[in-house]
């Protein structure tokens, strides 16, 4: 079915690309915040556990619980629930700044768990080796935990980034701008199939690129996989 007010095909890029840029900015800012906060927070939660560098079981339970709550709330509900907080921080509840706050909170909760899980999969022997080799607790965390978990953390970061692209579309639907906003206003509300299809293609390509980049980084940071890759390629 065609509507008279559909965006003509040649005009679609002019509509999509600024929106894509908005999405990239939104996700980029959020991921920067997520990594800066999530890595130390994940390492902290991991090391407050009974086997960690500074075991505080009670505090660990509390922090872990807070992270779980953040993780388990559907994004739309989280976003709506913290509107007063968002307005307090950014002075607005629309646009990119307003989307960044709930996305960061959801992303930090997500990533904290990812970091914690990645650290848990590092053999705990290595922390003992580091301590026996004269490391301070912070040196243990940096070299025997985080450094060894880098490929796994990057793998998680990829999933997290893709989730944030999805969240940005949800945020876009309530007026934050970006690809999601275009998809909802043109594709959903005006039945503009051309625009709808274009947003879908852009999102699929974007997610595929992020995934590819993430996979490549995981390979690059895993000595074992790096070698396999080299061997697999014809000389």
């Amino acid at each position, binding site marked *: 079915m065609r509507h008279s007010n559909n965006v003509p095909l040649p005009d679609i890029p002019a509509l999509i690309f600024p929106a894509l840029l908005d999405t990239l900015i939104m996700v980029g800012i959020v991921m920067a915040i997520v990594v800066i906060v999530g890595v130390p927070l994940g390492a902290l939660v991991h090391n407050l556990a009974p086997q960690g560098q500074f075991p505080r079981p009670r505090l660990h339970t509390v922090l872990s619980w807070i992270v779980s709550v953040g993780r388990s709330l559907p994004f739309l509900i989280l976003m709506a629930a913290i509107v007063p907080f968002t307005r307090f921080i950014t002075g607005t509840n629309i646009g990119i700044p307003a989307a960044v706050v709930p996305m960061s909170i959801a992303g930090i909760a997500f990533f904290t768990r990812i970091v914690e899980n990645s650290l848990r999969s590092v053999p705990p*022997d*290595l922390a*003992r*080796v*580091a*301590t*026996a*080799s*004269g*490391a*301070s607790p912070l*040196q243990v965390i940096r*070299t*025997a935990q985080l*450094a*060894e978990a*880098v*490929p796994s953390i990057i793998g998680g970061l990829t999933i997290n980034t893709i989730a944030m692209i999805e969240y940005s579309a949800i945020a876009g639907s309530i007026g934050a701008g970006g690809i999601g906003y275009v998809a909802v206003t043109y594709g959903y509300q005006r039945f503009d199939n051309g625009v709808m299809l274009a947003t879908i293609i852009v999102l699929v390509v974007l997610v595929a690129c992020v995934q590819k980049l993430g996979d490549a980084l995981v390979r690059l*940071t*895993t*000595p*074992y996989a790096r*070698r396999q890759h080299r061997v697999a390629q014809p000389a």
Partner: protein
Amino acid sequence: MIRLEQLTKNFGDTTVLDRLDFSVDSGEIFAVVGPSGAGKSTLAQCATLLEPPTSGSVIVNGDNLSHLNAAQLRVARRKIGTIFQHDGLFSRRTAAQNVALPLEYLGVTPLESKRRVAELLDRVGLSGKARSYPHELSGGQRQRVGIARALALRPSVLISDEATSGLDPEATASVVSLIKELRDDLDLAIIFITHEMDTVRSIADSVARLDRGRIVESGSLVKLLHDPDSELGRSLQPRRAHAAATASAITWFVSYRSALVPADWVSQLGAALGSSVSLLGASIEVLHESTVGHATISVETSEDERVRLALDSLGLDARREDPVRLSVTS
């Protein structure tokens, strides 16, 4: 020198180490053996204070490590190198980067660190593998990297927990000879924890057996092997199947009691008894310039007391074997 005094470790209500007392001198390799769950790994962890002991002291070169705070302990621990089971190498670091870890923690300049790492890798025979990652090395090579790392801060004590367990015999032999070489060159006091008795015989100067957190027996390796009443001495020796004696002969289990047993004791025994002596099986070797081991023989005489006396005068302990026992016919 490392000395443990009344070292005790409880996990909750269970006592895993019970008032251990021993000391290891510079240049001495002290093996600790014991069944799984005896507390050997806990001993290694408490001796380096990775696990705080419940009570008792760890004294290294006269310094008591037991009452130090975390920062002081980091400094004191430099005197102790630790070799771990499963090598404990960092998978994302090359051999050289693994060896450099303790230097990096200490804050040694990269240039100085590079020089020292090259020296250490050379010392363990892995100069050519500096840039290899752990997964590119064999088990024995990985353990050598672990040894180089343990030596990075020039410790005077080395603690090894099952360093050769899981290695093939050839790699085990190479690690054992490396550790002995390092002991000689660097005058290290070494606590070598293992459950492999063959490895103990090839490496130890003295041995202690840990069982349920207590040292139940200990002594110099050769003394234990020469003591026919020592349970530890007996468990250190391989017990192999031997040929069956003829129906009329009597089977004896003979073990070396001293270093002075003549090499031709079998023929001397035959001459003294005036009857033929058959060698059915034996495990004899020279450790620390002393011959140790045991043999199963059969003699064509039923004068047990004469046989016993003749063997005794040759420096051998003799026990009549139970005639009804499973054995392998050759």
